[in-house]
């Protein structure tokens, strides 16, 4: 390279302005460098494609996962609602059984009371029958007469 050109290149390097041959588009990169750059570009593109593919797979599986999670959540909500409904039904059934117990209690109390009343009446009836025929009759007649005339 002539000295003038060398000085020009040196100035260009210092001032960052292109040299005349650079400005004219004259290739200054060696073929080896070019090949290396091409190789680098190819490799970068290949790795980018792989990354894109992985991203697509991940996105796809993520969508699947999101769908699955959503479905699980829906199922869970349905199951929770079913459990709530079942427990509410259980609550009603237990309540019904308890009210039946109380009803049975009232019925049995009424039954016992009426049986006791019947037993008392039967005792009184037996006592009356056991009394001598002449002793109890006039009083009964008096009461009956009183109730009709009064």
């Amino acid at each position: 390279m002539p000295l003038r050109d060398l000085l020009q290149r040196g100035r260009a390097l210092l001032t960052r302005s292109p040299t005349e041959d650079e400005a004219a588009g004259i290739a200054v990169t060696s073929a080896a460098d070019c090949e290396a750059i091409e190789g680098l570009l190819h490799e970068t593109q290949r790795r980018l494609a792989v990354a894109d593919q992985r991203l697509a797979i991940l996105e796809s599986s993520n969508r699947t996962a999101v769908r699955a999670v959503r479905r699980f959540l829906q199922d869970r909500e349905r199951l929770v609602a079913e459990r709530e409904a079942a427990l509410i039904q259980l609550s009603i059934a237990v309540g019904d059984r308890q009210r039946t117990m109380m009803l049975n209690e009232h019925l049995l109390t009424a039954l016992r009371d009426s049986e006791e009343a019947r037993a008392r009446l039967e005792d009184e009836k037996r006592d009356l029958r056991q009394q001598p025929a002449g002793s109890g009759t006039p009083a009964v007649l008096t009461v009956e007469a009183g109730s009709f005339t009064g």
Partner: protein
Amino acid sequence: MGDRSVTIAIPVHNGANYLGEAIESALCQGHPETEIIIVDDGSDDDGQTLAVARAFGDRIRILQQPNEGVAVALNTALACASGRLFSWLSHDDLFEPGKTERQVQILDTLNRDDVCLFSDLSWIDASGHITGEQRLNLAMLARNPRLAFYEGLINGCTILAARDLLLRVGGFDARYPHTQDYRMWWRLTREAHFVHVPHCLLRSRLHPDQGSHRHDALSENRAFWSDVLDETSEVEAAMVDGSRERFLRRTGGFLRYRSPNRRVADRADLTAQSCAAEASVSVVIDVGSDLEAARRTIDSVEGQTRLPNEMILVGDASILHALGRDGACHRVLRPTQKRQIPTRLRYGLTATRGGYVALLMAPDVFAPEKIARQVARMSALGCLASHSSYCSGGETVATGSFGGRVYPEIVGDCHVEISTVMIHRILFLSGLLFMDEDAPLASNWIEVAARHEWLGLEEPLSVIEAPRAPEEMAPLLTWLRASAQHRHHAAQMGRLERRLAGTLTPSTHGKDERDAGASRPMRALAEGSYAAA
């Protein structure tokens, strides 16, 4: 309004500070058929409260009355409401959006007019910030719905119920300005169902101006819980906690630690101490066919260290007549010609008044401590069914170690002897015992075990002439095979089959005792009962 119509009643007295928010939250309910009634309970704040209400125009109805308290205001709303369903909102609380729709949907599904819904809630402070939540145990309340009332878990502003139901139980009692709501829930607990909705549907405001913190409110609250302790029957207490003693202890704990009622709590604890001694006891005695044996049986009851309140004697009229009504304790005679033991026992049980009922078949007899000990244990533990070890042929048969959750083991090894059994009467009232006259006695004990714990007392408290359990194995197996509920317990059924075969051919006893499914105590029980047999 149609069948899904709802009235939201907001009683208010001098409540201009929060009323607007409350009305807004009621208006935000998406349920289309909603009527909102504001009952101004004689506000004397120069018209501020009314002004807030009137600002909502014709979207709400405003009723006015002299200041007579919340109960009268709510009754006014009940009387004037047009909705089939009724809910109540305090002027300082807020409904969560969707409360009404959710509850109406549940009532629609249940399609019953004897249900009152209540829900969880969140607490807010005076400025409306959420400070906490009250979330109740849905499963626990489903299995024991009355606990909601007895544990003070029902907030009136979370309810939704048929208006007719509230009117049917008499509306709100105006004599109790501070406990009118809980007195209403008490009646509803007896007449209807409280059903818990496990979602926070209300924001309940805690602020210093609340009337419930005043002295007169606290004293009315004490009077209310005293009434609850006094007027809850033995049967009701047993439904909730298994016994009156347990009921009083749990209620005492609630009153002591979760309400300002320590004096009532002390009274509950004191009453609980004497519960077992004061519990009423009946003894149902099948007098059998031997008059002298029946006399010995009755003597053993009349010789108890703690006499029962009554004896129900069931059997042939001639024997009952010979036994007579006179004795150390009240006797009720129930003559019957029926031969089946379940029928005779059922007939006797219908005559009982006691909370606890001991069963006894002549010629068996009770040990003198039997009633005192068995009642004391059942009362303390809240157990509804118990049995004990017994003596037979001069030996002790240690069946009393058989207790707790014994289902389904009891299917294969039922060692409960009738003359050792004491039940709480609610077991009979629930229709669980002696309803099938042809079923073996053991089937009744299995039915009980499927639903409740059996309490086993290890001390021998009865003397049994001839144990019935071994004789019952064959009919029990037949009954189990026909039972849809129990027959799928194949291992236990197999054990019963082998035991039955063992009784027929003694050489098979060893195989039975080596049964992999039988626990060590069960094998001991089996050996005991064979020894007795």
